[in-house]
């Protein structure tokens, strides 16, 4: 864990599902999943990505690069094109122009193959499978990594059993990792809001991603839950997964990310370390649209802006 973050004295008061993932769970998971080399070599890149809807230019020539083991924050006012950018990265939209590459290879056009290639995401408005249990949601995430022949599935042959056992085992570990071990048989729609967000993360991790895209992971969460989510994202990074986070909560982003990108009206306005971005007057003006002194004071005081939809 990052030494700069609040120590164990605060986490001890938290309910079990909000505490940082237990170390033994992280250890076994890291063994199951691939672990980053720590080279910071670019893994996910976009060059000159533009997206035009009718007359609206939602994204204009966005070029960025995510290094292995890096956490990047993507901020910007509502309607800046953040979610559109995620949709371009995951194949839900195919960009009007420009290219997205994963480990130097062009990103497949089909979302299913993007997932197979190692990019997973969560959604701004939670999109779990509501009538399936928490466990089943994670098992669906495992789909792309499972091998079951149709005949073996019908006859419950040895190959079928092996793949089911492996998937259940991994799903249990992932649920424990996000702090939902106790709720594995609960229907997703019956889980509290914060737990649904964590379940979405577990489901995304089940696809064995090398890149995880989180769309407003703390929207609607209280301070405790937000802190737990920060710890969770650090733990995910420690598993070897590179992370891109969209958030409105600037304090959250500045204390979480290695680098921050500011998107305004579809353009990449500023890119840099949290300190650089925080101090940049253009950002403060474009993003918050208020007199700089006042807003800067707010940011340093740790005020947060409300999450909304874009």
């Amino acid at each position, binding site marked *: 864990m990052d030494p700069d973050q609040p120590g164990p004295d605060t986490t001890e008061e938290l309910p079990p599902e909000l505490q940082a993932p237990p170390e033994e769970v992280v250890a076994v998971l890291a063994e199951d999943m691939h672990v980053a080399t720590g080279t910071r070599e670019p893994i996910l890149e976009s060059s000159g990505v533009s997206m035009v809807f009718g007359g609206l230019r939602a994204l204009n020539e966005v070029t960025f690069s995510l290094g292995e083991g890096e956490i990047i924050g993507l901020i910007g006012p509502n309607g800046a094109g953040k979610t559109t950018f995620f949709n371009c990265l995951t194949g839900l939209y195919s960009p009007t122009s420009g290219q997205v590459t994963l480990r130097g290879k062009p990103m497949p056009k089909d979302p299913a193959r993007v997932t197979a290639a190692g990019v997973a995401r969560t959604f701004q*408005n939670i999109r779990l*499978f509501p009538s*399936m249990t928490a466990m089943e949601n994670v098992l669906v995430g495992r789909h792309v990594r*499972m091998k079951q022949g149709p005949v073996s599935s019908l006859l419950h042959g040895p190959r079928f059993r092996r793949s*089911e056992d492996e998937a259940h085992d991994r799903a249990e570990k992932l649920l424990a990792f996000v702090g939902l071990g106790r709720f594995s048989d609960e229907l997703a*729609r019956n889980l509290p809001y914060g737990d649904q967000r964590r379940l979405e993360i577990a489901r995304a991790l089940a*696809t064995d991603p090398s890149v995880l895209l989180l769309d407003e992971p703390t929207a609607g969460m209280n301070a405790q839950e937000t802190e737990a989510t920060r710890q969770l994202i650090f733990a995910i990074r420690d598993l070897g997964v590179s992370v891109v986070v969209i958030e409105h909560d600037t304090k959250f982003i500045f204390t979480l990310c290695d680098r921050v990108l500011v998107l305004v009206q579809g353009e990449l306005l500023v890119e840099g370390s949290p300190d650089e971005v925080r101090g940049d007057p253009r950002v403060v003006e474009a993003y918050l649209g208020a007199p700089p002194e006042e807003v800067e004071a707010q940011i340093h005081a740790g005020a947060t802006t409300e999450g909304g939809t874009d």
Partner: protein
Amino acid sequence: MLSTFLSQIANGLVLGSLIALIALGYTMVYGIITLINFAHGEIFMVGAYGGLASMTYLLPTVITQRWYFALPIVLVVGALVSILVAVAMERFAYRPLRNAPRLAPLITALGVSVALQEAVRVFYPGATAAIPFPDLFIQGTLIIPIGDGVPIRYTGILLIVLSLVLAFGLERFVERTRMGRAMRATSQDRDVARLMGINPDRVIVLTFAIGGALAGIAGVLYGSYLNNINIDMGFQNGIFAFTAAVLGGIGNIRGAVIGGLVIGLVKALGGQYLPGGTAYDYVWIFVVLIIVLVFRPQGFFGETERVRA
């Protein structure tokens, strides 16, 4: 008295499990793409003709004379013919309309239904009238020794047992396997399913294929039990099966089976005991449907709310 009642129960269970097999196809297709596939009854009919064709034109007498060879082969042929027709129907009639308004595939389904009936009438030798269908199982009737004895044909017992086994197997498949979970995920949120690496087209084809296989098996069993088939059999039984699926809660596998059994029992018992006799047995089925839907519009097992977070 008692034996009349019990033998009507037996009749009802036979008819009910047949309807349940067909209803599973309706309910699964609806669950995945919210389409009432009105041509599903014709898939059932085509399976019966396919099975009969293999019996009449394909298999040597060494096989047709021994039920333990003939029955499994004819069941498989019937299932394969139905799978083929169901998958082709999805590919060429429904897939191009996947994003069209809901009414377009529904009307197409009615058209496909008529086309299939006419195709069989034109191309199957002698299909302009009812065709005799051999009993493919052990001949004869078992008398269950209760009261004056309750008769049930061996083929009827086979129909009940096979239907329940298949329905149980299907439920396990959908609940516990990778593709089964993919089917449920696709029915709940197709876009997100795609992001989990699931290919929705493959899931939809699989759904039509499973529904087709069950309908084809039902077609062969129907012919074997009633000993003749005609091109209208799909329409009549398709309506019953659709009603069963709605009664049980459309989209729900267990509901389709229970719905089918209820309809079979209502038809048999209503024909025996209610005024009007068998002339009115269809009426009682729809009376039950109306009563159930007034008090439980979502059917026995249907979900009251579909939450989409």
